[in-house]
């Protein structure tokens, strides 16, 4: 394998995952929380594809594509919820959304 080992790719994935987790934990705008979630999912995708290359097995890439589809579904539902919240004139702040009543 030319270039860097799989280890280096996994290091990048670990850093991206930690950055995304930090964003999910400290940001209050639900839009940025969703964006940080995407960052975490993509870090996992990078690790999956790196392992797929390490073992020479295509199953990791299949898994990554499934994760992509699930992430797209999650974005649809999440953005739908955020738009519904905005139309109900709720504040878009995840710390203030403490009630599940409609």
């Amino acid at each position, binding site marked *: *394998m*030319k*270039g*860097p*080992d*799989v*280890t*280096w*790719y*996994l*290091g990048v994935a*670990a*850093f*991206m*995952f*930690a*950055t*995304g*987790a*930090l964003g999910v*934990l*400290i*940001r*209050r*705008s639900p*839009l*940025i929380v969703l*964006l940080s979630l995407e*960052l975490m999912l*993509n870090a996992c*995708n*990078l690790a999956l*594809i*790196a392992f*797929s*290359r*390490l*073992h*020479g*097995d*295509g199953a990791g*890439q*299949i898994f*990554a*594509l499934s994760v*992509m*589809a*699930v*992430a*797209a*579904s*999650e*974005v*649809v*539902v999440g953005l*739908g*919820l*955020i*738009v519904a919240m*905005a139309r109900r004139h709720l504040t878009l702040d995840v710390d203030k959304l403490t009630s599940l009543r409609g």
Partner: protein
Amino acid sequence: MSHLVLAADSGNVLVWVVWFAAAAACVGSGVAVVSFSNPFYSALALIGNLASLAVLYLLLSAEFVAAAQVLVYAGAVMVMFLFVIAYLGGRADAPWAGGPNVNRVAAVAAALAILVETLVAIGLKAGDSLSHAASISGSFGSPAEIGRLFLTDHLLAFEITSVVLLIAAVGGVVLGAQARRLQAEEAEEALDPIARVPAEPVREESPVEVPAAR
């Protein structure tokens, strides 16, 4: 002979250079996503992050996944994100607004713990098992190979994915329709002043309150 070795080395160096550029862009844009106060800029940074990830996928010879990443993620999903952010307006909140409190400090500690744990776990395995990549054929990661895997070994995952996407589409429609009905009701109430309740109680209460004030 030395000519061949030189050519191989220069190819290796080129891969390292591309890897370094893509990894730096990945990490930098990832930090930018979290630290921009405007969601619009965060979404743009995420598009850059997804594009540089696609370069890393190409270096790992996952061509089809890289193409799908650019088309589906950086294309469709992020356009949807940008539409919603433009619709809601850029309501900025700075990540450091409000100063450090217990939650913030705990969040940073948790993220650092995740980073250190994963890096240590990778570092323990770095020398031996992680540095011997399997030799692969030329078709590894090509659309034909991915399609063959999806329709033979991983057919169940393929079908489940399609059901998940269908459910998400239905969920999006349901959420949108509900929000629209609510907005229509509000608009109706605003147009119809007789239907509004608070007109009468205010008139009843005012004679009671005025003497009390005197």
